[in-house]
């Protein structure tokens, strides 16, 4: 890439004076500021020369500033040394002090097999196994035209088997993460276009090896696949490779793509180091959409399938993609709330809506203050925030006030901005990478957003009852089954606040109770107009002569105070009456944490029967009881595993 500094696009940026400033700051022991300037230098000119400067100064700063330490070992079949300063400089920009150990040339097998090798003595946190296809599968790569399909299949199987053994041996000696380069396909297969006419072509076998590597990797904890073939394709095989460097220096990658290789490694190292963002805060005008809604009006902003609106839709798609990985989205915009909300809710071209955002700060307050509040509202650290804004002034202000925030780089601070690069900037930023995904990650945005709407909705209703009706709650009661056993036991073990007896049960204990005919073990699921809360409550009751005793009654704090507890208790009372019991009784056993449940029985017409040192026993006469399910809750009672009829709330 040509030098872009020569034509003075940035009057204020002078690489030489920025270097001098870093050295001056280090000499004056202003290490934190020096560190920030050094990161700025790298941001402005991420190149090999800069990397050498950055790493030499990093060696002076590393013991003086707070950086996450990560040890990376690279096992390789080609020259990687020129990438080491690049990956260290790039890591530094993510707040990581990366120590790199490079295995000897082509000794990766010995390094893995020998438990005493320098690899294991280095005690790495992450290991990259970078072997070129022509070395991992020489027969398939060089002599393919000589092989029968059977011989080629055997060769592929041998390659897979070798990797499998290396991985297993590695795991015996180390718990470090292992990142394996997949094999690249030949850009000119030996049989030309004929190669792609069957699965048993040269490319077909390489792909087959790669699929097997993915499969094997997934059977080990902490073994990851780096799709080298896709990486090369993304940059273009002919540009990526430099045959001259390969033949003279065993370096297969062209000078202009060494940084891309280093950045691909960072997509693994950043999530492994934990320096990831949990939330991305975006600006609205000229970031999420084109134009200024306060001036252009909702009809005048640009977002839709046609350019320039398409560039903003591309960004919105990137936002939805990262939110599916559990990264929360938030808005921080200097705007009039009504204008912005109308655009967010009503503009037909918008792909993200208000419901996708876990926090909204649409006001005229300074952005760093808003970011602090957002972090607090989402209950995450400021260092877990990333920030996207088209305005270089806002970016610099946030960088200066909150250096721990990841400010998304948009190139060429002084040039006319290019919205086409926004989506790429998000997709390329390693703080949004994840190596594994839990079910909770995938639902996190919905859960936060629904919670936000609920609390917002509650404030706008005249009475609690109006709010309850608005919520359209549905509760589903069913006897505990093998499908719900684990969750029921888990709730008894971890629910502290709304828990009347705080009796902790294991899965076998619960299963045993449920087998007894005089015991009922019930679970309750709740959903409302904003979303599904899942299985959030448990009631356990058993009949004893004329009475039915509540052994356990608990609800997750997510749903308390919304009368679900009344619905559950009313069901216990009604079903006990149907079984011919005269009284429903239950203990309240106080703990340090269950004050929210203290007045529960009293509020529902129970009378205190006795009290002792550990708690109080309450009783409800079922003949005179008026306890009913509130009519704003739609209650569905299932018998066994099959759903029974839906009974209207507040029935007979």
């Amino acid at each position, binding site marked *: *890439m*040509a*030098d872009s500094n*020569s034509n003075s696009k940035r009057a204020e940026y002078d*690489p*030489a004076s920025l270097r001098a400033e870093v050295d001056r700051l280090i000499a004056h022991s202003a290490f934190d500021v020096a560190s920030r300037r050094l990161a700025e230098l790298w941001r402005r000119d991420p*190149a*090999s*020369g*800069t990397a*050498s*400067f950055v790493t*030499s100064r990093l060696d002076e700063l590393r013991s003086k500033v707070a950086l996450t330490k990560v040890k990376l070992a690279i096992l390789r079949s080609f*020259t990687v*040394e*020129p990438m080491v*300063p690049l990956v260290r400089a790039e890591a530094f920009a993510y707040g990581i002090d990366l120590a790199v150990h490079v295995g000897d040339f082509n000794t990766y097998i010995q390094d893995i097999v020998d438990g005493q090798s320098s690899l294991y003595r280095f005690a790495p946190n992450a290991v990259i196994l970078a072997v070129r296809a022509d070395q991992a599968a020489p027969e398939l790569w060089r002599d393919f035209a000589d092989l029968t399909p059977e011989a080629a299949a055997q060769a592929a199987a041998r390659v897979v088997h070798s990797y499998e053994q290396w991985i297993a041996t590695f795991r015996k000696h180390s718990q470090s993460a292992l990142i394996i380069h997949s094999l690249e396909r030949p850009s000119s297969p030996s049989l030309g276009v004929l190669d792609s006419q069957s699965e048993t072509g040269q490319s077909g076998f390489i792909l087959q090896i790669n699929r097997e590597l993915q499969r094997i990797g997934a059977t080990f904890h902490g073994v990851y696949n780096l799709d080298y073939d896709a990486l090369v394709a993304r940059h273009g095989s002919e540009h990526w490779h*430099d045959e*001259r460097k390969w*033949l*003279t*220096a065993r*370096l297969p990658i*062209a*000078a*202009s793509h*060494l940084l891309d290789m280093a950045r691909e490694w960072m997509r693994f190292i950043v999530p492994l180091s934990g320096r990831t963002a949990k939330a991305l805060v975006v600006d609205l005008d000229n970031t999420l959409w084109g134009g200024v809604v306060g001036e252009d009006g909702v009809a005048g902003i640009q977002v839709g399938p046609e350019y320039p609106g398409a560039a903003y839709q591309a960004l919105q798609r990137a936002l939805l993609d990262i939110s599916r990985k559990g990264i929360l989205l938030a808005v921080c915009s200097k705007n009039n709330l009504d204008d912005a909300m109308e655009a967010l809710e009503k503009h037909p071209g918008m792909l993200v809506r208000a419901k996708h955002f876990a926090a909204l700060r649409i006001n005229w307050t300074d952005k760093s203050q808003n970011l602090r509040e957002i972090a607090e509202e989402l209950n995450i650290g400021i260092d877990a925030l990333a920030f996207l804004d088209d305005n270089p002034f806002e970016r610099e202000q946030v960088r200066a006030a909150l250096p721990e925030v990841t400010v998304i780089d948009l190139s060429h601070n002084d040039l006319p901005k290019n919205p086409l690069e926004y989506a790429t900037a998000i997709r390329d930023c390693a703080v949004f990478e994840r190596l594994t995904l839990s079910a909770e990650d995938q639902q996190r945005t919905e859960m936060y957003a629904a919670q936000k709407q609920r609390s917002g909705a509650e404030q706008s209703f005249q009475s609690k009852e109006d709010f309850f009706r608005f919520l359209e709650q549905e509760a589903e009661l069913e006897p505990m089954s093998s499908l719900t056993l684990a969750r029921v036991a888990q709730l008894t073990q971890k629910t502290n606040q709304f828990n009347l007896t705080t009796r902790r049960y294991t899965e076998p204990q619960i299963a045993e109770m449920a087998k007894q005919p005089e015991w009922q073990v019930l679970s309750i699921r709740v959903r409302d107009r904003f979303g599904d809360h899942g299985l959030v409550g448990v009631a356990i009751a058993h009949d004893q002569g004329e009475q039915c005793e509540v052994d356990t009654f608990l609800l997750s704090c997510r749903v308390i105070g919304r009368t679900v507890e009344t619905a559950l208790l009313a069901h216990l009372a009604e079903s006990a009456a149907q079984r011919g019991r005269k009284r429903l009784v239950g203990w309240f056993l106080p703990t340090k944490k269950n004050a929210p449940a203290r007045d529960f029985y009293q509020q529902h017409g129970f009378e205190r029967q006795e009290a002792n040192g550990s708690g109080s026993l309450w009783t409800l006469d079922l003949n005179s009881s008026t306890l009913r399910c509130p009519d704003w809750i739609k209650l569905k009672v299932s018998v066994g595993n099959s759903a029974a009829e839906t009974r209207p709330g507040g029935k007979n």
Partner: protein
Amino acid sequence: MTASTLERVRSVASDIFGVPVDKITAESSPQTIDNWDSMQHLNLVLAIEEKFGVQLDPEDIEQMKNIGAVATLVEKLQSTPR
């Protein structure tokens, strides 16, 4: 060679070899810069290719006997499209 190309080559060499830029002249060579070994020579080649958008042949690389020669080479490559 022009002064500006030499300036830019000197600043790249300063970064790569970890030597202050004012200590680097057109005459600086592996004999005068301690750190200029074969690996750093490769790093210099890569940094020059990256910075100036050129590609060096093995024969070119052999000609890089001192900083002045590097600057001359860069100008030659930039003026002859290949």
